[in-house]
């Protein structure tokens, strides 16, 4: 059974149509990449799956057999969808450590695992800082990953985990994504999935099980295929070539 099924999803934001009849699936244990140029609607798609208020949505979003289309973001999160925003807001007076504590209480996350992940990400020094205030781009990504780990989601939505990140940090981020999705543990009973939005696909080299990618252009899913092949084509011919692609969905 597919963990996530998106059926003919159209999204309007302030009267403007951003996504048009998008359909795709994410299987259990699968990592799906979404590729596409700036402004093509990739982030909007993740926000629509997460339940951003103010979106005018038609079509259906099914998560583990449950129609979540009308649910609030917090209900979806409680069902097991986790979201790593591209540009998370800074929160005055909200300490990272406190938020981690609250999340791990809600989701029953193992403290030792979180301690290890924060060491791996080398962000212990940020724990007592106010969330995202004055953080660099790379620090924001790492902190969001730690928060995501605390949430322990069944389906992780990752919006450009590789943008603004220095080259040395990419493998670390990839490793933590693998841990969150459980890709590094073959004995894991519960299969976890992820959708990774990536502009240039840099992160995909470090993430296991990323076997399928979709290309989104002008609010529509244009084609899908093996991520490495698609990225090679895009690097050679640009996204415009996709318009003539034979692997149309």
């Amino acid at each position, binding site marked *: 059974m597919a963990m996530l099924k998106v059926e003919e999803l159209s999204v309007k934001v302030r009267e403007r149509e951003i996504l048009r009849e998008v359909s795709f699936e994410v299987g259990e244990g699968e990592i799906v990449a979404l590729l596409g140029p700036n402004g093509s609607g990739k982030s909007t798609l993740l926000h629509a799956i*997460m*339940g951003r208020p103010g979106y005018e949505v038609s079509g259906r979003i099914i998560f583990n057999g449950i129609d979540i289309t009308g649910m609030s973001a*917090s209900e979806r*999160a409680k069902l097991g969808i986790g979201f790593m925003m591209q540009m998370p807001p800074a929160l*005055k007076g909200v300490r990272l450590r406190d938020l981690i504590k609250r999340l791990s209480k809600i989701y029953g996350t193992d403290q030792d695992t979180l301690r290890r992940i924060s060491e791996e990400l080398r962000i212990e020094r940020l724990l007592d800082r106010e969330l995202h205030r004055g953080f660099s781009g790379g620090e924001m990504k790492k902190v969001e990953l730690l928060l995501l780990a605390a949430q322990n989601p069944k389906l992780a939505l990752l919006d450009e985990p590789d943008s603004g990140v220095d080259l040395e940090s990419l493998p670390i981020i990839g490793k933590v994504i693998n841990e969150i999705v459980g890709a590094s543990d073959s004995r894991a009973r519960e299969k976890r999935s992820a959708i990774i939005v990536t502009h240039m696909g840099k992160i995909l080299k470090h993430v296991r099980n990323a076997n399928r990618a979709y290309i989104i252009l002008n609010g529509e899913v244009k084609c899908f295929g093996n991520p490495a092949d698609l990225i090679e084509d895009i690097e050679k011919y640009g996204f415009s070539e996709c318009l003539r692609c034979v692997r149309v969905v």
Partner: protein
Amino acid sequence: MLKKAAEEALNKPSPYGIDLRIEDFLKPRASPSMGLEALSSIGIDPERASYIQVDNRPVEVRPSIPGVKVLTLSQALEEGLVQDYFWNAVKVDTDKYTAAAELFGGHEGYVFIAERGRKVEQPVLSCLLLSTPGSLQAPHNIVIVEEGAELHVITGCLTSAEAPGLHAGISEFYVKEGGRLTFTMIHQWAPTSHVRPRTGVIVERGGEYVSHYINMSPIASLQTDPKVYLVGEGAKAYLSSVIVAPRESKMDVGGSVFLRAENTSAEIVSKVITKDRADVITRSLISAEGRGARGHIECDGLLLSDSSRILTLPALDAKIDDVQLSHEAAVGRLSEEQLYYLMTKGFSEEEAKSILVRGFMEVKIEGLPRPVEAQLKMALELAARGL
């Protein structure tokens, strides 16, 4: 001479705040209505207070903390300890409230003197209760921190809820060379109280003045604008206020720092939450005329109701070019983006709001006694709830 100046100023309105008639508060209507046990609502154990005044009468004076002299104003005047400090940092003819304090306040209030070089760790607690409805309470307080001394004064003020009362407390603080004074005010006025404190602080070379003002209860009207004069090289000031204004509260809360000497610096931070139909003005002024002076103002306002109002007025006055002054101000409702962000983590809308409000109000006050801190935390929880 003081009396004459006061009499002449008795009809002089304050430039800010609702104008009150002093004579309306000179006719106490009933016998005192509040006991000292009420202090526990702000986390203060009356047994541990160094000074307690009910209306205009000192009822407890406990000079039990080593390194600090604790007296009533009348004692201190009699012993000739404060002649140079009395009506010095605050002028008696500032307005009708200073005048009323001199003429009708009874020359009582607390006097704390931290001895030279003594770093007093235990905070000195003082409590002022306005108990008799319809009356004027006008304590005149003087704190002197001698050279190199350190002192933390915490005052809790309470009023009876039964009828309008006017509190016009005069506070004059003197921080000598290398001294440090922290002054924390935790107030719980009644919806019928009018409050007009008048505060002046003079800080000498290398000295530091830190003040925290906290008020989370409804009030009929509050207008205050403490003035801090940094007159010695390298002196510093930090003024923070945390205000939750519910119901029909009308508040005009200011803070002015005058950087008069070289390399002086100041920071003024105010955080205001309005609910219901509250109306709050925050004014801050940093005026700089000392070379190398630096100052920063930060004003944050959060409106939790559509019919409340926040007007924030940060002002910077540079009188020479070799100074650095800045301000940041942000007023509005809770950010939709921040709420959504927290909801994507699984918090309900209510929980997300309360996390944001608590974060907004976060202010670190070092050296608060545990019960006061607990009470403060509870007040914040209450403020964050029921949005």
